[in-house]
């Protein structure tokens, strides 16, 4: 032991002792470079572009913005985005809860496959997400002839756009619930079962309240992605302004038509939606932490009452 210490700290060698201390705390100049480059990266790639969006929108004065939001096609694109999100988000919320429930509660054939495939939309390009729906439901696709015969239009119309968006946003709710439900276990549900509760009562009264913050987090993430989706939707949308354009597609159209202030105005609106999402997400995390802290604090103050006689 003594020789070990001597080796690390030979007598009279202060330099070695110094480097030993600094091994855990980097020198000031390294810290400065590290923090500085992170900040520079953040400003260059995140903050600056965001401010430019709003600056671009305001470049020709607020009158252009006001006009932009009276334009029929632009208003229609906002409506389309909201409708698509209104279909995709509830669909993926229901699927996400069901998938998380099945994966964390049961052992079944194909469970591993389901767990792996849930992430698939995160790995593949969204364009592929759009393309597979064209291959399935397009005029020359598998179900194309049948759909044409029954006069059902999926591709180049709202159903296809909603489906492509569902594909792209499928992992978010399920992904935020699975680890949570795994950690929480099933004992509360089992307790509810022995108290006579049915499956729906357990879901509504026990499981959903337990996972509500995780669910909220997943839903707003899913919503942000649904409203911002470009690639998958652009493949299945006919890109007809005023009919099948969502906000991201409308932004591209305006930009290609050299209507920069209008393009930036819609982009700013979309960015604002994202910022609202970010605020909601942060608030949900605070609320979660606050509740946890509050319950912890009070439990420390609670004293144990003595126990004398049993139930009478």
């Amino acid at each position, binding site marked *: 032991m003594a020789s070990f210490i001597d080796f690390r700290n030979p007598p009279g060698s202060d330099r070695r002792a110094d480097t030993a201390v600094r091994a855990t705390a980097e020198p000031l100049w390294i810290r400065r470079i590290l923090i500085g480059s992170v900040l520079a990266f953040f400003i260059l790639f995140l903050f600056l572009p965001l401010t430019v969006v709003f600056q671009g929108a305001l470049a020709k004065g607020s009158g252009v913005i006001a006009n932009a939001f009276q334009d029929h096609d632009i208003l229609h694109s906002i409506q389309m985005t909201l409708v698509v999100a209104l279909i995709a988000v509830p669909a993926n919320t229901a699927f996400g809860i069901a998938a998380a429930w099945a994966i964390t509660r049961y052992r079944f054939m194909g469970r591993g496959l389901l767990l792996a495939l849930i992430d698939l939309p995160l790995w593949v390009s969204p364009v592929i997400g759009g393309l597979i729906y064209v291959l399935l439901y397009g005029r020359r696709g598998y179900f194309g002839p049948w759909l044409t015969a029954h006069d059902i239009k999926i591709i180049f119309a709202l159903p296809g756009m909603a489906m492509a968006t569902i594909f792209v946003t499928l992992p978010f709710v399920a992904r935020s619930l699975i680890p949570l439900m795994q950690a929480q276990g099933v004992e509360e549900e089992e*307790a509810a079962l022995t*108290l006579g*509760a049915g499956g729906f009562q357990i879901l509504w009264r026990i499981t959903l309240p*337990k996972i509500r913050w995780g669910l909220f987090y997943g839903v707003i993430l899913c919503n942000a992605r649904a409203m911002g989706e470009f690639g998958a939707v652009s493949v299945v949308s006919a890109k007809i302004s005023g009919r099948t354009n969502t906000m991201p597609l409308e932004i591209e159209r305006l930009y290609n038509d050299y209507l920069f202030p209008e393009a930036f105005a819609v982009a700013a609106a979309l960015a604002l939606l994202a910022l609202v999402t970010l605020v909601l997400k942060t608030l949900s995390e605070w609320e979660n932490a606050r509740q946890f802290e509050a319950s912890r604090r009070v439990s420390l103050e609670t004293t144990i009452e003595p126990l004398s006689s049993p*139930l009478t």
Partner: protein
Amino acid sequence: MSIEILNIRKSFGAFPAVNDVSLHIKTGEMVAFLGPSGSGKTTLLRIVAGLEFADSGEISFHGDNVTAKSANERKAGFVFQSYALFNHMTIFENIAFGLRVVPRSKRLSHEKIQERVISLLEAIQLPGLGNRFPSQLSGGQRQRVAFARALAVEPRVLLLDEPFGALDAKVRRELRRWLAEFHEKTHLTSLFVTHDQEEAFEVADRVVIIDKGAIQQIGTPDEIRSGSGNTFVRDFLALDI
């Protein structure tokens, strides 16, 4: 309410957790399942509760064959080692839960539910704490709430899975005495799982020693302590020393 356990078998994959167990628990009896961890005693209790289903065999409550019934139809109160209280509900709502999930036609009136929960809160000596949340209570208090919650629905039998396992020694002894007195008064047929012999011998009318998914000995605490069991039982209870 008697409990009949008949030729119960249960395997998890290739592992036989419960291996052909039969047992009759008389009305009003308090029976302890005592054994080392992994002996299958908790699995057996969960099969009685309907939280697990046996591969073969039968469970009856006083002649009512409940083998195929789900846990929510069996009216068997269950107390978990980790309390399993509903953390997002107040103590009051925890205890009232089983009364509120009853179909409307059979549900007690709002006032009756109120009355019963308040009297249960008094019985577990936590009067006035109905508005607290489980996280604001100590371990011993939480387990008392779990008892009250299980008893609120007037179960036919009471099943306890290591009910004092998560508590410190002092609270453990207190609650154990309380449970014994409670059983003395109500004679609610009870089954409880433990790995603590002292606990089993103090509280139970009969003790069932379980190992490797099979019953090794059944008897009153005195009979078992007399050393009449097999090598495993004597070894497990350290009766040879």
